[in-house]
């Protein structure tokens, strides 16, 4: 659907059908023939980005370029930005003097974040995990990468629940934030001191006694699924655990 204002703005829809695209390009062509100063493409409807969205975006870019009319993207959500960067298209569609990109108001430029506070009950952990899963889905991460992250969330949260000595009223602060090519997970809890970075891994590739492998599986999963782990004890009261993973 094209909304024509003083400064032509095209709403980029979430659903793209063959019939729609045919009309869309035709109307864009008519619009370009009017020689507007620039065309704004409103990407606010794009939550999940598919290859059809990307190829349509590229086609719009080519048509504008051929008409020598700048194309400006607005309300770009992090999922779209990330896909464009992975495909090496971001600098072509956004930079080169074509104007700034307005990032959706809930996310900061090149970053997206989620903050949760949950109690250490099974129900609250599951609720928090569901919210984290929704957040991961919007980021268009690889399937296994997203699975690793939700698994690590569950393992850390459950570890805090089972071994942190927290009361029912205590809560854990969790933040997931993205910057460039990595995602950082932060857990802050008021439990007893536990530094997972100091726990020796019980895994020994040479060791054939697999009985010992039953111990420390959770820590092993966390350490192997993430690229960096750091721990800090703050004010002798708070465990602050930071885990980072590069996008795959």
């Amino acid at each position, binding site marked *: 659907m094209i909304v024509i204002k003083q400064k032509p703005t095209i709403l980029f829809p979430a659903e793209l059908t063959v019939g729609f695209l045919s009309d869309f390009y035709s109307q864009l062509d008519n619009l370009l023939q009017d020689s507007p100063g620039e065309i704004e493409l409103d990407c606010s409807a794009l939550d999940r980005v598919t290859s059809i969205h990307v190829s349509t975006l590229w086609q719009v870019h080519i048509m504008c370029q051929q008409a020598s009319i700048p194309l400006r993207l607005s309300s770009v959500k992090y999922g779209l930005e990330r896909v464009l960067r992975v495909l090496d298209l971001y600098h072509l569609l956004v930079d080169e003097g074509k104007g700034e990109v307005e990032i959706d108001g809930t996310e900061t430029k090149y970053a997206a974040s989620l903050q949760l506070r949950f109690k250490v009950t099974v129900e609250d952990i599951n609720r928090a995990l569901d919210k984290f899963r929704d957040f991961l889905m919007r980021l268009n991460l690889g399937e296994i990468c997203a699975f690793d992250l939700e698994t690590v969330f*569950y393992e850390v949260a459950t570890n805090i629940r089972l071994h942190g000595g927290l009361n029912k009223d205590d809560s854990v602060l969790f933040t997931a934030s993205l910057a460039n090519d990595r995602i950082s997970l932060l857990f802050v809890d008021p439990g007893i001191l536990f530094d997972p970075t100091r726990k020796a891994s019980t895994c020994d590739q040479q060791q054939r006694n697999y009985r010992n492998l039953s111990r420390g599986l959770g820590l092993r999963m966390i350490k192997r699924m993430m690229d960096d782990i750091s721990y800090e004890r703050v004010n002798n009261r708070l465990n602050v655990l930071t885990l980072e993973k590069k996008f795959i």
Partner: protein
Amino acid sequence: MISQKALDKNMIIINPGKVLDNNNAHEMADTISTAQAEGYKHIILDMRELEFLSSAGVGSILSAVDVSRKKGGDIILCNASKKILHILEVLDLRDYLTIKPNEEAAKEFCITKD
């Protein structure tokens, strides 16, 4: 929800359901050990529905493998998804555990082992 079905006097198939985590890992361990105590040498774990496997869930399986193998049997995983296989790979368990692509291959393994 964990379910099970005897295939013959030596073989039983257990389905752990969609999730095997800290909430039902004990139940899984009990189910397996009960099957072992009832004389089932071969325990096939059908992972077709399993979407989430925590460390506790892995532990519930691992703790029973030795028991079955000492009795000349085994615990055989089948129909595991890419995500579940990834968990086992992360934990270096792909080579240790007996993993078959489907139920038929798992049954054939059990028969060959006998």
